[in-house]
């Protein structure tokens, strides 16, 4: 998924953060054991994009959805790599493939109920999944539509009725027929679109204002853009759920707070703010949380996304691979990192895939001392390419101080090569629409990408498969259409061993970087300050580094 969605959610709200310390049961700090009960506060800037599971699709809502929704499988609830392991949720296992991986069968557990008291049946899961084909509703996770066989004219259950390719032989069994074999389908059914919705319900915007819960909490009060409260769903049975601890009795979100205000409140930690969590702190706050007392309340870890600069290979002179390589060599990643808040808020990126991805190889194809940029090496490449006298290029950036600061850092780094970078600031609301429209994007753009689950399958093909270039909503910003890369993507897709496929994606990463279609800039980190009464908090690798909401709680719930 696009990092923008995540960034706005993380900035805002949601739950970013997380601790490297983990839930190891120490007596102090955010990792301490959480008690049951109490109301956990969440201070946030931006509200959730959608409450409807078929619409929302970013690190922030994905984390939140686990409180109110359940899917066939889900990601683990633990720090580190265990958090990104796929485990059964509504289903008894992670799926049984047949027909060479083209047909997948899942069996539902016993004792599953919606908040209304109605049992969750395979027909409800099917109804929920088929909503993804509705052109107005299915704007979230695209995987169901991409992988499951369906008539080309199918437009969701409200318009087109039943989808024959998902079979429900009985109330507990659901069978998916795919377009072609897919080895990792057990991970796909953890996507939000596999949330059950009671058959016949959820048309239009119904779920966006009043979700129908299948998880441990249900929405009790929702004021869009202002606040959201979830309380226990007494129809949820802990015995059917090995993932969710569901410690607090309620979660209370407050949206629309200024990021600086959130930081001040978290530092002060007065009153109910002691029971609060919030998003990543501002760069200016980093120096203030260095006291021993506050340090105990901070958590940090990788966000799981890559921030990069896409180089449009259809524009001159960026169509020349040597020019793109020269830019890769010359960019001073130290100054780019400082622009977003320094070493505590970001790590320097050298490969396309972030470190949280399985099978990722750590390598640096365009090395320079301290990542400060190799101007001489770059100049040599430019001279070979015939651009020793430089050129002018336009860099698209979002109208957001952090993004502009990164653009200025890149502008400075390329100046010695006589490359004049013109910064084109685009309004935040329309940014992704503009750069995703091939006729409107300029030479370069700063953006990011987060994996939908930690596999190269959700990272490299969406960004570099040349056959996926579309006139609108294009995510292949470099418009790279390399036969070698395309062939390799097809080859990996045929692998039935998920491990071997992930390792192959690690190699594909190198193959792509040799063509230098992008400049990997940063793996941004989350640095959060949590209230002194927060326990059981850890960073979840699968949710852009957010605090795992299904495990967090209050140390003393009597407060």
């Amino acid at each position, binding site marked *: 998924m696009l990092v923008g969605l995540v960034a706005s959610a993380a900035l805002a709200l949601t739950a970013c953060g997380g601790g490297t310390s983990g839930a190891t049961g120490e007596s102090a700090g955010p990792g301490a054991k959480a008690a049951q009960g109490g109301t956990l506060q969440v201070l946030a800037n931006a509200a959730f994009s959608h409450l409807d599971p078929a619409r929302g699709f970013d690190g922030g809502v994905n984390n939140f959805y686990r409180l109110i929704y359940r899917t066939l499988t889900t990601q683990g609830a633990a720090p580190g790599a265990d958090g990104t392991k796929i485990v059964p949720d509504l289903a008894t296992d992670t799926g049984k493939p047949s027909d060479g991986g083209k047909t997948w069968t899942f069996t539902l557990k016993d004792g599953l109920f919606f908040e209304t008291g109605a049992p969750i049946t395979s027909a409800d899961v099917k109804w929920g999944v088929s909503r993804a084909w509705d052109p107005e509703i299915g704007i979230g996770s695209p995987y169901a539509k991409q992988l499951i066989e369906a008539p080309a004219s199918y437009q969701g259950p409200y318009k087109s009725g039943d989808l024959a390719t998902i079979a429900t032989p009985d109330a507990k069994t659901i069978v998916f027929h795919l377009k072609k074999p897919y080895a990792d389908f057990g991970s796909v059914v953890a996507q939000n679109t596999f949330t059950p919705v009671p058959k016949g319900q959820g048309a239009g915007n119904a779920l966006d204002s009043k979700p129908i819960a299948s998880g441990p909490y249900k929405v009790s009060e929702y004021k869009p853009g202002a606040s959201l409260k979830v309380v226990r769903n007494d129809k949820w049975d802990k015995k059917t759920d090995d993932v969710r601890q569901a410690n607090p009795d309620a979660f209370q979100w407050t949206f629309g707070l200024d990021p600086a205000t959130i930081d001040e409140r978290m530092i002060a930690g007065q009153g109910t703010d002691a029971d609060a969590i919030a998003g990543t702190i501002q*760069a*200016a706050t*980093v120096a*203030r949380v260095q006291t021993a007392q506050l340090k105990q309340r901070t958590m940090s870890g990788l966000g799981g996304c890559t921030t990069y600069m896409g180089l449009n290979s259809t524009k001159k002179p960026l169509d020349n691979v040597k020019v793109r390589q020269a830019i890769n060599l010359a960019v001073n990643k130290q100054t780019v990192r*400082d622009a977003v808040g320094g070493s505590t808020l970001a790590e320097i990126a050298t490969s396309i895939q972030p470190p949280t991805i399985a099978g990722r190889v750590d390598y640096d194809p365009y090395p320079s001392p301290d990542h400060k940029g190799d101007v001489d090496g770059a100049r040599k490449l430019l001279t070979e390419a015939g651009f020793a006298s430089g050129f002018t290029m336009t860099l698209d950036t979002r109208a957001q101080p952090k993004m502009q600061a990164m653009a200025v850092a890149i502008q400075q780094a390329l100046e010695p090569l006589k490359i004049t970078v013109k910064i084109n600031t685009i309004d935040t609301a329309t940014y992704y629409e503009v750069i995703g429209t091939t006729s409107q994007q300029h030479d370069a753009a700063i953006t990011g990408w987060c994996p939908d689950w930690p596999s190269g399958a959700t990272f490299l093909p969406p960004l570099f498969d040349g056959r996926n270039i579309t006139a609108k909503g294009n995510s292949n910003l470099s418009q790279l259409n390399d036969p070698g890369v395309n062939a390799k993507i097809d080859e990996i897709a045929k692998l039935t061993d998920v491990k071997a496929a992930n390792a192959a994606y690690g190699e594909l990463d190198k193959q792509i970087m040799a063509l230098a279609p992008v400049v990997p800039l940063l793996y941004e980190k989350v640095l959060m300050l949590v209230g002194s009464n927060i326990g059981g908090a850890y960073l979840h690798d699968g949710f852009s580094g957010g605090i795992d909401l299904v495990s967090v709680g209050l140390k003393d719930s009597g407060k």
Partner: protein
Amino acid sequence: MTASPTLVEVEEAVPSSAPPTSGRRILTTVTRDKGALACLVFLAIVVLMAVAAPLITKLSGWGPYQFDSAAINSDLGGVPHGSLGGISGSHWFGVEPQNGRDLFARIVYGARVSITISLSATLLTGILGVVLGMLAGFYRGWIDQVISRLMDFLMAFPALIFMIAILSSLPSGNRPVLLVVVISAFGWPYLARVIRGQTMTLANREFVEAARASGAKDSQVVFREILPNLRGSIVVMTTLAIPGYIGTEAGLSFLGVGVSPPTASWGQMISSSVSWYSVDPMFFAIPGLFLFLTVLSLTVLGDKIRTLIDQGEAA
């Protein structure tokens, strides 16, 4: 207002044909007033900084866009090393957090932006205000109706909100020019109103009647008779407008619709310093002080000139 004996003396020394207030008399009086002199000196320094910006930064050794990673602490979110925002022998005013750009160089180049934009806007509003004000006041009738309604319309507008709306919807392009045009578009009616009223009064005075009777054309009456008598008002109005425009430019840059980065601007510096106020107060204090002193100096000086011209006219 009582004219001091000195003033009367000066008046007497000037030939009676000269206009009531001469530039030289204003200058002598201002230089005798310590406060006004201090303002004048400060403004001279700011203007000098703006004019000689490239030379000054060559002397200080750091350009306005040059990054200095060594001057900031990457592990602490990019705060400048050292106390007082990194003030040192090589960075005279310290550095900007997160990138280490030299604040002195950015202040100097920021002065360029502030001065150029405010002076251009003043010039443009001056021309628009005087021309349209005189047209309305001299010809009256339907011309006056059209211009006066346009002025009412523009003055009734919530100007700041409209400026923000226009500037954020326009494509980036040449920001300084856009700023000047937008500021002037909303600024000229204030001058034009005063000019129109005074032109109306002057047009009925005996010397204008006399000029007309002796066969002077409209253009001669306007340029030889009326305009010289409006000089005092124009000088006062424009002097007092400059600090207003500097403030507007800084305000618009603060709100993120002014000049675009990396161009240095005081308003923008203050805007980006807001989140750093507690860890690096100097980042806020330095551009804030320059903006404050510049606006204060211009206002004090403008006030002084107005007093002198009023006295001159009374004398």
